[in-house]
């Protein structure tokens, strides 16, 4: 699709070309007229020179006749001026008709005729001075002068005739050139007017339609721009509110980050103290482990002693079995002695008493033996319990030792982990400080953004105002290009 500029440029270009053509044609016509006018002037100049030459010859003849008649030298004044002028005129005529060979020939003829006439006049004048009036009249009466004059007049007429013919021909050329120029100017101007009018109508219609569409489009766009600016202003206000809230939140976050940094610093300090305590604990655990090894050895000794005690108790039990059996045997013997004493009658009564005492003693020994056995059993049970308890204690000590090893390992691990924790806490502290710096920068950026949002809100208001003005201008422009549509 052609743009307005191209259409207008095309219209102006065609108009320019038409005007240029008309101008060229007019210029050429005027130039032709000017040249023809120069030629006409030249022809008139030639005619004036021919007439002047003939007049000079007449003046010279008039002065000759006056001198001949009167003998007065004063009448020779025209004759003398003609002698200088004729030469000059013939030379000028020769120059003026340099482009015409026919006229050059005639000028040669005229030059010889002028020379012959001036020679005849000079003879007659000399004759008058020398011979007086009468001989001179006779010579003049011979008609030589008159023939020369007639010939000269004839040549002059021929030259005039040719010049007039040239004049007529140039007048016709002028007329033709003027007619062409006139026709070109009239028709060209008319065509140019028609073209300009048509182009103006077409351009006006096209421009009106397109401008109206564009203006309506601009009007719609202005409305949309108003709506968009309104929305943008609303959004900017909401953004400004959000930015304020974000700024508050970031300030709180900043305070929290600083607290975290301080806490991380404290954690790092505490972790360093914990590392020291863990190392001290590791040493304490190592000492306790050494003590446990000593306890373990003592427990082994106790176990051995208790086992030995158990063996002794068993030996005591074996001895006690013998004692018990002896008591039983004694008892049986006493009973049997009693039986025997009873069978012996009165003689056996005293023996019976002794036997009874022996039996009682045996009973008591048996009872004591039972008690001792009970005690020995208790002792053995206690020894077994102690051995078991000691073994359990030994196992517990072993387990404790292993647990102490694990505790020592755990302490070392704790120390290592706490060292890692210290490092992590320092990294957290550093990161939190960096985060604090970043949050401060973010806060500054948010503040700048809030300022930008406020400026955006203001510019949105200006945009809305500008869009309103643009809508008004569009309406005015539409009213200008399409009043009926605008109305």
């Amino acid at each position, binding site marked *: 699709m052609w743009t307005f500029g191209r259409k207008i440029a095309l219209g102006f270009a065609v108009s320019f070309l038409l005007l240029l053509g008309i101008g060229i044609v007019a210029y050429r016509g005027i130039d032709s007229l000017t040249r023809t006018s120069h030629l006409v002037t030249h022809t008139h100049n030639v005619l004036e020179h021919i007439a002047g030459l003939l007049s000079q010859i007449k003046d010279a003849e008039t002065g000759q006749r006056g001198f001949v008649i009167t003998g007065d030298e004063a009448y020779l004044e025209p004759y003398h001026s003609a002698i200088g002028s004729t030469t000059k005129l013939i030379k000028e005529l020769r120059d003026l008709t340099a482009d015409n060979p026919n006229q050059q020939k005639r000028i040669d003829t005229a030059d010889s005729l002028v020379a012959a006439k001036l020679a005849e006049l000079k003879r007659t004048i000399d004759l008058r001075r020398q011979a007086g009036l009468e001989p001179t009249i006779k010579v003049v009466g011979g008609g030589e002068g008159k023939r020369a004059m007639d010939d000269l007049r004839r040549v002059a007429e021929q030259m005039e005739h040719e010049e007039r013919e040239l004049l007529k021909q140039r007048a016709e050329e002028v007329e033709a050139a003027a007619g062409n120029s006139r026709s070109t100017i009239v028709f060209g101007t008319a065509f140019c007017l028609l073209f300009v009018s048509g182009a103006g109508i077409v351009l006006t219609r096209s421009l009106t339609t397109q401008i109206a569409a564009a203006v309506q489009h601009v009007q719609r766009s202005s409305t949309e721009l108003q709506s968009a600016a309104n929305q943008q202003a609303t959004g900017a206000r909401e953004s400004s509110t959000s930015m304020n809230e974000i700024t508050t939140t970031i300030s709180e976050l900043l305070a929290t980050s600083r607290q975290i940094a301080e806490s991380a610093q404290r954690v790092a300090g505490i972790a360093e103290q914990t590392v020291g305590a863990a190392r001290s604990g590791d040493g304490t655990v190592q000492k306790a482990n050494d003590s446990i090894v000593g306890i373990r050895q003592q427990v082994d000794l106790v176990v051995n002693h208790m086992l030995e005690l158990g063996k002794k108790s068993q030996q005591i039990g074996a001895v006690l079995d013998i004692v018990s059996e002896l008591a039983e045997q004694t*008892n*049986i013997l*006493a*009973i*049997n002695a*009693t*039986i025997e004493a*009873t*069978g012996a009658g009165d003689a056996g*009564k*005293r023996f*019976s*008493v002794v036997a*009874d*005492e022996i*039996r*009682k*003693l045996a*009973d*008591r*020994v048996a009872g*004591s033996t039972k*008690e*001792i056995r009970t*005690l020995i059993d*208790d002792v053995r049970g206690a020894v077994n319990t102690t051995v078991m308890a000691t073994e359990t204690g030994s196992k517990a000590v072993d387990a404790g030792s292993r647990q102490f090893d694990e505790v020592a390992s755990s302490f070392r691990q704790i120390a290592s982990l706490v060292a890692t924790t210290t490092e992590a806490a320092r990294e957290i502290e550093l990161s939190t400080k960096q985060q604090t710096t970043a949050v401060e920068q973010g806060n500054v950026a948010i503040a700048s953004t809030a300022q930008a949002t406020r400026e955006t809100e203001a510019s949105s208001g200006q945009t809305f105002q500008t869009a309103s003005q643009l809508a008004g201008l569009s309406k005015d422009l539409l009213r200008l290009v399409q009043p009926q549509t605008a109305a």
Partner: protein
Amino acid sequence: MGANDTTLGISQKALELRLAFDRAFAEPAQTSSAALDNFLAIRIVADPHVVRLSDISSLLPLKKVTLLPSPLPALLGITGFRGAVIPIFDLRVLLGYPASEPPRWTAIAADMPVGLAFDAFDGHLRSPREASVQPISSELTRPHVREVLRCDDVPRPVVSVFSVLETIRQGHPHNISSKE
């Protein structure tokens, strides 16, 4: 503390034994023993019984019994005693008890060279004559038991060795295990 108490108890017991032993030689001889009955306290299975000491001639642990094939369930076998071979009867079977464990003791009867085997020997009891021995009804007792001795508030049936020996003497298996 417990060990000290135990040591004190044992020392006290030893002192009491020594005192009793010394007292036996210090006190005058008791001649009133004729008024006392002597009993041998035994245990058949788990029940306490007594046998009159006058009914037996000797008490000895039952070490080795040579088994004999016999139609009498109460006859355990024979054993040697003071150069003689005597039969050993199971008193538990004779009294109608089940015989599970081998008996550990035997009492030699005074009237007849026969050993009566039982489980345990508790000791020698002495009680005033006719004071604490009471008859019991025959329906409630086992065979060969007619009396009960109350000593230290513990009733102990009195096994009649005479009755047992009478049964053995009759020698009939049905008589010996008539109550089984």
